[in-house]
């Protein structure tokens, strides 16, 4: 398992091994699952209560399905750790945060200061994405 390099949660680190979606749905008492780009995140919705960690794998960062998976899970009320793993690059960090990711375990460790800059880059945002940030239209109309 790749190390978590950035985490934006107060609770204790989750170290449960993540199983595949198929394995999870087949059995199981696992508390951590890993979603691949082709998996349907909605299949997990009936089981969110007992999941403490969902990893979303980005085999290539240019495959954006994981962003939708994350939002689907957060919109369904998942409040556990949502961890981006795989080809996680600096330039997608703020985007991932906005879609609900709160932990990051890149295959290749990222430059700390560049990553911090990326997380803090956007002072304001145009869209509501369920991440708690007030979009610009919200600020304009109080």
């Amino acid at each position: 398992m790749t190390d978590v390099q950035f985490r934006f949660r107060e609770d204790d680190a989750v170290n449960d091994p993540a199983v595949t979606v198929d394995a999870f749905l087949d059995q199981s008492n696992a508390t951590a699952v890993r979603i691949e780009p082709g998996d349907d995140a909605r299949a997990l919705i009936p089981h969110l209560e007992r999941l403490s960690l969902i990893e979303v794998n980005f085999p290539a960062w240019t495959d954006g399905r994981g962003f939708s998976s994350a939002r689907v899970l957060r919109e369904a009320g998942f409040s556990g750790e949502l961890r981006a793993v795989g080809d996680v690059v600096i330039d997608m960090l703020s985007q991932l945060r906005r879609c609900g990711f709160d932990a990051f375990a890149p295959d290749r460790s990222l430059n700390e200061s560049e990553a911090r800059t990326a997380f803090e880059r956007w002072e304001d945002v145009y869209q509501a994405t369920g991440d708690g940030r007030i979009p610009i239209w919200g600020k304009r109309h109080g």
Partner: protein
Amino acid sequence: MYKYDQYDQQMVDTRVAEFRDQVRRRIDGHLTEDQFRPLRLQNGLYLQLHAYMLRVAIPYGTLNSQQMTMLGDIADKYDRGYGHFTTRQNIQYNWIKLEETPDLLADLASVEMHAIQTSGNCIRNISSDQFAGAAADELVDPRPYAELLRQWSSFHPEFLTLPRKFKFAVIASETDRAAMKLHDIGIKMVRNAAGEVGAQFYVGGGMGRTPMIAPMIREFVPLDQLITYSEACLRVYNRYGRRDNKYKARIKILVHELGAQEYTRQVEEEFAHLLDQGIEPPIAELERIKEHFADPAFEADAPDDLDLSDPDFRLWAQRNCHAHKQPGYISATVSLKPVGGIPGDASADQIRLMAQLAKQYSFDELRVTHVQNIVFPHVRKADLYEVWKTLDDAGLGTANLDTVGDIIACPGLDYCSLANARSIPLAQKISERFGSAEKQSELGELKLKISGCINACGHHHAGHIGILGVDRKGVENYQLLLGGSEGADTSLGQITGPGFDEDGIVDAVDKATKVYLANKHGEERFLDTYRRIGMAPFKEALYD
């Protein structure tokens, strides 16, 4: 027109800073070209055959004179003194240096412009009717809705790495001047039985290798659900659009493979879910944006007649001008298609001159059309002669709108790394062959469009006459298509048969026009005659 507030400005400034960092990391070697590529593309920066090309966004084709002047200055400062207006109502510069792009973007940001998402697999610049806010036949001004969508789609975190690029067009009149049904999402503003304005959604159109006309998937989306519905359309596409083959990755393939009905069902399901998520801006935001598009201060009693005694002016006024909703005013199109010229090109001086004319005579506003021309949307009829005189003196007075000389052509093999054949020299030859006023007048409305490869950037599928450049065993070869249209009567052109070489295709166009002239009834356009008599007589003339 829309004016940035502190937030819009800050978003654009932040992007400049972000891209400056990315360029630095590339030059330092921290990013490989493979890693940098998707990043630069999201900022409209392509690596072409000879240099970097930068595409600057002109949202819904509207800009003011200060912005237009800056586009001219950028052509001088960073390019070789030219800009190239495109079918996405944008402008491209063909000779850009990577290390200068952050400064170029900062110059753009200083006049509320940017190159955000003008390329890459994300939601691109949103196009619209070039006569929006001026046309006599529009229901409402479509641009406020396009601006609302622009803000929503800019940096949308879920939709920056879609299966493929994604283009919106928004129109609000029966006459479609934006090829709306040939977009990933085409929106037509309509009024329902209750008299309310809303958005009609057409999804899954496009040109490229597999041209498709978008089916309507929703007759009426209320204005306070516009963003939510768009988000539902995009989410279904992002989750299920094909990623195994980039030539099958556009939404048109998904809609086609699922069937419009099943795609619609999935969108409606997602939409019902998203309605509870609070993602829709309040109507007050749309109202705020609308105020920016209020009519300029038209003179109520501007004289409504034109002195057409100068025959050259008369020809231009009749060809290149469009009816305005306000009596005493007219919309004038500047053709960037002089005989033998490069379609869509303008020199820095010409760009600045058009800016100055817009400031003086068109309430400080210009438009770029998807046919690669420039519009002064609001000219007093009393000023039109003066405007034309000034344009004509600068080589911008060509009277050929919508005629065979008003060619759309992609950059082709002269610039583009994807092209199979040259487009520009062919456009030049055709415009020289058919460029005389007599010939154009004889042939009437005839939309000719040239693409240098199957990706169809030159819209050849939608030309009354379309030309597609292909590579045939290492030799440039040109296929001829007839019967395409991008208007309210959208249709896709059909290939006539075997292709031609460069001179042969010019002769083939000549033959096709002769068949038209021999068969036309009354005032019929080329397209109407083709639709009536069909392909056979053309084939006969072309291949016998």
